[in-house]
């Protein structure tokens, strides 16, 4: 019975998410949209606490209390002009959470589960990229990190290495506890290499893209647990974020490819 109640709560939460985002795209209803999305999130969190056999509840509550305090403090104390940095920071935290979940879950996953293994590796790699990339984006907007030109081909090789290792770990059929941490490390490095060369003025577009990536990791985490609210909410953010990225670039009269690859090591893009 309790499982069904949890499922229904998740279902209602998904509806609130969709309505929330929809209302948020009109100036008159945007505040209501935010409130709806928030109530959906609260419902999803409460439902998760109903899960039978949940251990460490005190620990969970302490972590949530700390997170709530910190989140409210940052959100209230930061200046209006520094908002995009803060969004980027929060976004990085979401990506990191997804990667951490992947790390813990790896220890529990049977090594012969190729499908779930692939989903888990996606969480790890994308979550880590989103984390380190978001922090660089934040630093750039804040003006503490300067543009550094990093050869894009080299950066892609780093990403390729992470993906290749991930595939090896999935297919090796043996537990690879050390390699999993190596994959996280390499993905973190790729996140840095990905954002470092992009100019500070283009950061909002990049943050939107990273936000979309965090959505995708939420969705892959949802696949891992067969949890519909994470899957649906994550993909919603993933696709809406991607479209928003395109719209933001268009508003700046740039193309996303142009923003991401203009500093392509040495070669000049046409136009």
């Amino acid at each position, binding site marked *: 019975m309790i499982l069904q109640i949890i499922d229904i709560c998740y279902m209602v939460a998904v509806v609130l*998410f969709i309505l929330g*985002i929809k209302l*948020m*795209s*009109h100036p008159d209803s*945007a*505040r209501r*949209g*935010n409130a709806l999305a928030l109530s959906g*999130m609260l419902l999803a969190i409460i439902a998760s*606490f109903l899960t039978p*056999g*949940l251990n460490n509840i005190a620990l*969970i509550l*302490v*972590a949530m209390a700390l*997170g709530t305090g*910190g*989140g409210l403090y940052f*959100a209230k104390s930061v200046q*209006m002009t520094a*908002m*995009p940095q*803060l*969004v980027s920071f*929060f976004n990085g*935290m*979401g990506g*990191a*959470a997804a990667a951490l*979940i992947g790390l*813990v879950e790896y220890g529990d996953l049977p090594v012969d589960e*190729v*499908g*779930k293994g692939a989903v888990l590796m996606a969480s790890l790699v994308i979550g880590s990229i989103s984390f380190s990339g978001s922090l660089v984006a934040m630093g750039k907007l804040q003006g503490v990190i300067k543009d550094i030109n990093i050869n894009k081909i080299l950066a892609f090789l780093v990403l390729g290495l992470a993906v290749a290792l991930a595939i090896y770990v999935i297919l090796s059929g043996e537990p690879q506890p050390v390699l999993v941490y190596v994959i996280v490390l390499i993905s973190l490095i790729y996140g840095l290499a990905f954002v470092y060369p992009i100019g500070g003025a283009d950061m*909002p577009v990049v*943050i*939107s893209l990273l*936000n979309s990536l*965090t*959505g995708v*990791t*939420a969705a892959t*985490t949802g696949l891992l*647990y*067969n949890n*519909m*609210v*994470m*899957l*649906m*909410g994550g993909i*919603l*953010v993933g*696709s*809406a*974020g*991607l*479209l*928003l990225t395109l719209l933001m670039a268009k508003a700046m009269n740039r193309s996303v490819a142009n923003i991401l690859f203009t500093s392509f090591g040495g070669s000049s893009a046409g136009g």
Partner: protein
Amino acid sequence: MEQLIQYLSDNQQEFYVFILAVFVGIEVISKVPTVLHTPLMSGSNALSGVVIVGSILVLGKTSPENYVALSLGFLAVLLATLNVVGGFAVTNRMLEMFKKKPAKK
């Protein structure tokens, strides 16, 4: 490869939801005006904090003796909460600028 295909067919429902949600996400924000780009980005960022559900589940099923998993899970809950709470609070602060002002002018 077989296992991967088996996984896809075992989880068909999830993947159908996945595909449909992509279109829903694109559809619901397709007409967003430029002024709302940043608040919407912030709002959807708060929504991606839905991983908090996963972090609660992962910490909730960890055995109290496994200290590595406990600390990683604790950190996951903490960071996901930051994402959710901070995300919604910042969005709300941004949107306060859109509050209807009493008609003067």
